């Protein structure tokens, strides 16, 4: 079986942009193919992660972006899975290459969330909840995560201040990421004094509304070797995916099982252990997500996940030395929903190829990306990526 690698990456800056979704994709495409032949000469298929047509009133993003890239002749489709759409697109690309069906596949994601303002985003994101009982009760995305946060704090003794420190850490990382939406540090007081959005979560516990597009080019190792130096590539050695109930009420409220299964699948395929992961991008849409995911993917002992905000050496026994959300995470890098999974892979690529600048983790060899969709682990995709 061919070994899939990341051949190249590109992305627009994340933030509130004047550009539309297709324009943001053009930015990502231009960067990703800066040193490559035309996409038409090498790309065999295209997948687009995209959450919602309600922002731009545009479906058919597969066809549109294929046309934009000069790829009208290849199969192209939009992949839907709310905020996991990006990693689902990446997973399709990896599997197409591993199966031998394709030599090179373009995985991308695009979202123009600011088009409808905060109310538009609230409305669009609520479509990810169960319509029958959850949506009709008036619940919003922050309040769904607040239900998880309230229970997590109740069972583990974690405090609002500890959750605030997750936001502080991720802003500090984003301050060193030129792609990030918020390139500024904040202190815990800023988080704690921000207004409640849904108790116990406050404004600064939440990822922002973001525009952005990202592209990751997956190729077989053999074909990649004809196009770039091998040290510029990163192995996509393991991928796992898993679903959980759509309605949050029916899940384990303090253990994101879907993410646990997805990560385990990725570890098994790659033949690695959680303890061997050096850097990880986890789906910190809200501060409470990072501790929940740290526990579910095996970095932290149960109930100790909230120590994710501490330096590796300061955490309890049983914690791995992984560096979490070096990009700034969804919280501060920004969260253009359908593109987020690709931004995670781009951070892993930059860390594993030594291109992460001021936020470079020395000696990073293995990365885990965990991308969730719906509320928390309604669907999760995990990728293990390794330096060549």
């Amino acid at each position, binding site marked *: 079986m061919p070994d899939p690698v990341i051949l190249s990456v590109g992305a627009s800056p994340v933030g509130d942009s004047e550009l539309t979704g297709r324009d943001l994709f053009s930015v990502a495409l231009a960067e990703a193919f800066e040193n490559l032949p035309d996409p038409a000469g090498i790309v065999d298929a295209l997948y687009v992660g995209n959450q919602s047509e309600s922002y731009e009133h545009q479906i058919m993003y597969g066809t549109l972006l294929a046309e934009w890239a000069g790829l009208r002749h290849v199969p192209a489709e939009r992949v839907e899975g709310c905020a996991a759409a990006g990693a689902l697109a990446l997973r399709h690309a990896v599997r197409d290459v591993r199966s031998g069906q394709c030599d090179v596949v373009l995985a991308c994601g695009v979202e123009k969330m600011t088009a409808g303002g905060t*109310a538009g985003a*609230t*409305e669009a994101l*609520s479509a990810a909840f169960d319509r*029958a*009982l*959850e*949506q*009709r*009760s*008036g*619940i*919003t995305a*922050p*309040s769904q995560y*607040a*239900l*998880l946060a*309230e*229970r997590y704090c*109740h069972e583990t003794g974690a405090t609002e201040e500890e959750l605030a420190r997750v936001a502080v850490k991720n802003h500090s990382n984003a301050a060193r990421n030129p792609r990030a939406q918020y390139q500024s540090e904040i202190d815990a007081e800023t988080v704690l004094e921000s*207004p*409640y*959005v*849904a*108790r*116990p*979560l406050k404004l600064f516990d939440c990822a922002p509304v973001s525009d952005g597009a990202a592209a990751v080019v997956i190729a077989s190792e053999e074909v990649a070797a004809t196009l770039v130096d091998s040290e510029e590539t990163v192995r996509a050695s393991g991928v796992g995916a898993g679903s959980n*109930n759509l*309605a*949050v*009420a*029916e899940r384990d*409220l303090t253990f994101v099982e879907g993410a646990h299964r997805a990560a385990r699948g990725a570890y098994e395929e790659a033949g690695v252990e959680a303890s061997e992961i050096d850097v990880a991008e986890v789906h910190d849409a809200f501060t409470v997500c990072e501790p929940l995911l740290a526990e579910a993917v095996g970095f932290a002992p149960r109930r100790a996940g909230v120590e994710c905000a501490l330096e590796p050496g300061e955490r309890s026994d049983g914690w791995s030395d992984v560096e979490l959300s070096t990009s700034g995470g969804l919280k501060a890098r920004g969260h253009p929903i359908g593109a987020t999974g690709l931004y995670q892979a781009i951070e892993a690529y930059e860390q594993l190829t030594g291109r992460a600048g001021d936020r470079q983790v020395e000696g990073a060899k293995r990365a885990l990306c965990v991308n969730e969709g719906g509320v928390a682990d309604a669907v999760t995709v995990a990728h293990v990526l390794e330096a060549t």
Partner: protein
Amino acid sequence: MTGRERGDGESPRRVKPEDLTAESPFTLPGFFAALSDGRLLGGRCDECEQAFVPPRPACYACGSREIAVEEQPREGTILTNTEVARPAPAFAADAPLTIAIVELDSGVRLTGRVAADYEEVEIGTPVELTVRELTDQEKEFALDHEEEWPLHVFEPA
């Protein structure tokens, strides 16, 4: 209060295509019609005993399709709750909303509004399920087929 509804004298059994009418509790129109009559119907897996609302064709815990329909108790306990400062536009008039995940005495869990201020309830508070029609405001945002579907609301017991 909890009782099994047996069809053809040999329930539970797999639902058949012809069972799935708008009167069946295995469909949302049937589930909400029963709720309008004050009956919250759930499914219970005959293999593993997992219970859930609404009823569905297979058990999420074990995959079995042998599902019995059971009327649910109204009494339950708050597992977690929050206050929605800015709800979706359909519910803006009622903001802030108190919302909770409740475990009914049957083990079924569901999310719903709580007719109380956030400060009045907490994890462990006993609640009772009530059912009401949609308000005019809520009906505006409902899809055509949802307008007559009632809303479940928990009240502190």
